[in-house]
């Protein structure tokens, strides 16, 4: 039996090796990248070129520009996939009730708790910095939200899951998450609605002015570059991801504390 398993591993390696050998000219990095990638690099911040400026995002960060503008609808549906996963988790754990227990005497020592109280705002600041500078530096809404989601995890480990559940329950996080998603949806159609009101053609998910659709989101506010919709998307995605992760941790660790209501 062991021979079969080893043979399977060797066969997989050989098959993938064959695939990579056939496609090696695509996989080996050359001094030039693909034309599409080069266009994205050239167009991500380009108010100079007379043709490319019709497609620019005005964001120096190429990856965020692709994620939220060039392929913005893709990311919108990706966010809804994550939302549906949380909804699925809530549906699967429906009918589980927390056992009535006191949080007294749970968690780690006073030293650890005090240090956590000091570091939690710092983590929040780092996460907000990563998320809100997503159009300038590496990072973005998802990464910033993941950093912020460390705080509820720390609170669960160091205080107790009941400590967190008493202050911010699943419904609260769900409301926060829905607010984030609502902002994402509203930012997506903001220029479209403005176009309807002003009687000017405009697109859904439009960011910068396009041929025939002259409206645009603000590129900068008081000299600070915000790249139009990108900053709003990053802010909303940060809130949504942080609360989504918190819901996941909270349910996952609350079920340890629950008993079944009725028959299991």
């Amino acid at each position, binding site marked *: 039996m062991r021979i079969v398993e080893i043979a399977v591993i060797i066969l997989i390696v050989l098959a993938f090796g064959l695939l990579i050998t056939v496609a090696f000219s695509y996989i080996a990095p050359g001094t030039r990248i693909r034309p599409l990638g080069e266009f994205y690099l050239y167009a991500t911040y380009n108010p100079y070129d007379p043709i490319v400026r019709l497609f620019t995002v005005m964001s120096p960060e190429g990856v965020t520009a*692709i994620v939220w503008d060039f392929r913005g609808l893709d990311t919108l549906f990706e966010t809804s*996939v994550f939302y549906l996963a949380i909804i699925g988790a809530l549906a*699967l754990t429906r009918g589980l009730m927390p056992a009535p227990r006191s949080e007294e005497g749970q968690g780690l020592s006073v030293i650890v708790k005090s240090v956590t109280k000091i570091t939690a705002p710092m983590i929040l600041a780092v996460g907000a910095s990563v998320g809100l500078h997503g159009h300038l530096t590496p990072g973005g809404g998802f990464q910033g939200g993941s950093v912020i989601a460390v705080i509820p995890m720390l609170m669960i480990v160091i205080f107790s899951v009941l400590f967190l559940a008493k202050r911010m329950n699943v419904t609260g996080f769900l409301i926060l998450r829905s607010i984030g998603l609502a902002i994402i949806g509203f930012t997506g159609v903001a220029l479209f609605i403005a176009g309807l009101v002003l009687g000017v053609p405009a697109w859904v998910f439009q960011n910068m002015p396009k041929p025939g659709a002259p409206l645009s989101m603000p590129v900068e506010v008081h000299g600070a570059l915000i790249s139009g919709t990108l900053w709003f998307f990053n802010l909303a995605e940060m809130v949504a991801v942080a609360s989504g992760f918190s819901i996941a941790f909270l349910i996952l660790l609350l079920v340890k504390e629950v008993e079944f209501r009725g028959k299991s």
Partner: protein
Amino acid sequence: MEPTEFLNLYLLSVTIASLLANVAISLYGVFYKPHYTKKIIAVSILSDSANTIAIFIGFRRWLSPSQPPSVAIATNLSREGIEKFANVGVDPLPQALVLTAIVIGLAVTLFLIYLGYMLYCHYKTLDMREIRRLKG
């Protein structure tokens, strides 16, 4: 072939070979490990290896021994700076696709974990052989 050229190609081959070994080991874990949690861990290793391979596809070779490829973030926003940036930056498209893949992989993992929890509630075990024996 020059020694540095050979060394570069050799190191690239080592990286790709180890990623392939990673893929093979994770597929082995998905197929043959009987425990549900280990299957989930294997799936996440598989998706991370695939993402790393995708990042490698978008990489750019060093233009000269003194000029490394730039990350996909423009720092000099003048006209010349942007034109130079388009010639030295790495491909941002695979990175954006990998970001999407990571989020979706996370959602799938989350769903699998809750599914495993319900599996445990019903069968009182996560061993796949036991579950097959209990209910077809």
